[in-house]
């Protein structure tokens, strides 16, 4: 069934991820399901009729009519502060989607997968990690996750548990501001050594998913091309500070 236009959803739960982000659990009647990596548009309407819509990645496989979107606070944003503070459980919000068929991991694709996430850009990548597990897929996955500090890691406990229980999932962190105590690495922006050490060699023909702020995505995709990956095997999604 093709769905167009906006659907009315209800907030059923909100889980704090970090100081500046939370996952919203929305109930969308007759949700048709979605693919890992797809997004939804959320729309708010003010009393005077003013509307604001933003795109958010779905961060988990659907649970019946329930979907999860993970939202990063954009200070002074029009939408994200309301989603994190204003919207109460039981409140209604409009949803359009699922949309986007490009930044999508397909279970039938046997290629090894490299996920590279910057900050909140990990959200659609988490949907892929969760969907892979739910389907019992053995496709090897690696995640390189760039964060400011340990406090900024989304899904930290879950990632630790999944890596422990799953031999074909690896996670490597890049800290850009503050390195956790006990680690010898220096704080740095993601670079060639990170992608070389924790990614897949181009000869294995992996599919690379890169998601994060625009500058991050540009830097990572340039490095992957320089390391020999075919541009069509590098799928990108840029997150902008559009609030």
């Amino acid at each position, binding site marked *: 069934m*093709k769905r*167009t*236009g906006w659907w009315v959803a209800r907030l059923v739960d909100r889980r704090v991820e970090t100081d500046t982000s939370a996952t919203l659990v929305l109930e969308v009647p007759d949700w048709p399901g979605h693919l890992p990596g797809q*997004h*939804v*548009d959320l729309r708010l309407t003010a009393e005077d009729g003013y509307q604001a*819509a933003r*795109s958010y990645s779905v961060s988990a496989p659907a649970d019946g009519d329930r979907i999860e979107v993970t939202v990063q606070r954009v200070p002074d944003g029009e939408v994200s502060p309301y989603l994190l503070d204003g919207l109460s459980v039981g409140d209604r919000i409009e949803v*359009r*989607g699922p*949309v*986007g*068929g*490009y*930044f999508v991991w397909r279970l039938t694709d046997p290629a090894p997968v490299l996920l590279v996430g910057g900050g909140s850009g990990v959200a659609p990548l988490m949907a892929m990690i969760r969907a892979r597990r739910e389907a019992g897929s053995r496709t090897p996955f690696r995640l390189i996750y760039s964060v400011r500090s340990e406090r900024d890691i989304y899904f930290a406990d879950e990632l630790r548990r999944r890596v422990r229980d799953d031999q074909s999932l690896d996670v490597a962190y890049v800290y850009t501001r503050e390195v956790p105590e006990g680690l010898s690495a220096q704080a740095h922006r993601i670079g060639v050594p990170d992608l070389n050490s924790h990614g897949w060699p181009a000869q294995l023909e992996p599919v690379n998913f890169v998601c994060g*702020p*625009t*500058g991050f*995505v*540009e830097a990572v995709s340039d490095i992957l091309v320089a390391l020999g990956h075919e541009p069509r095997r590098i*799928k*990108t*999604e*840029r*997150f*902008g*500070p*559009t609030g």
Partner: protein
Amino acid sequence: MTDQLRPDPGRMDYLDGNVLAGPLRDVFAVDLTTATGRCAACGQTGPMAALRVYSNAPGVVARCPNCEEVMLRLVRTPTSAWLDLRGATFMQIPMPAEPTMMPGPTAM
């Protein structure tokens, strides 16, 4: 004169064509972000999802990632959608195989 209307080089406030999926879905029956498009200005061919999208203009403006010329504009008014595709030479849209439909009556 169009050069003066281009975004500043080094500007990083654009998104990518993935965000077009929702707005275009209201207009088209298929997901156009997985389509391949050719830029009318420079001839580069690539996925629509890889375009640079500026949504702080009225409506959305999608530019070629190679030459920064406008390939697609979409503006919504309360009663209609305005879609300007003159910056794209063609769009190739993935489609499942389907029996060819011939125009006009056919003898069964």
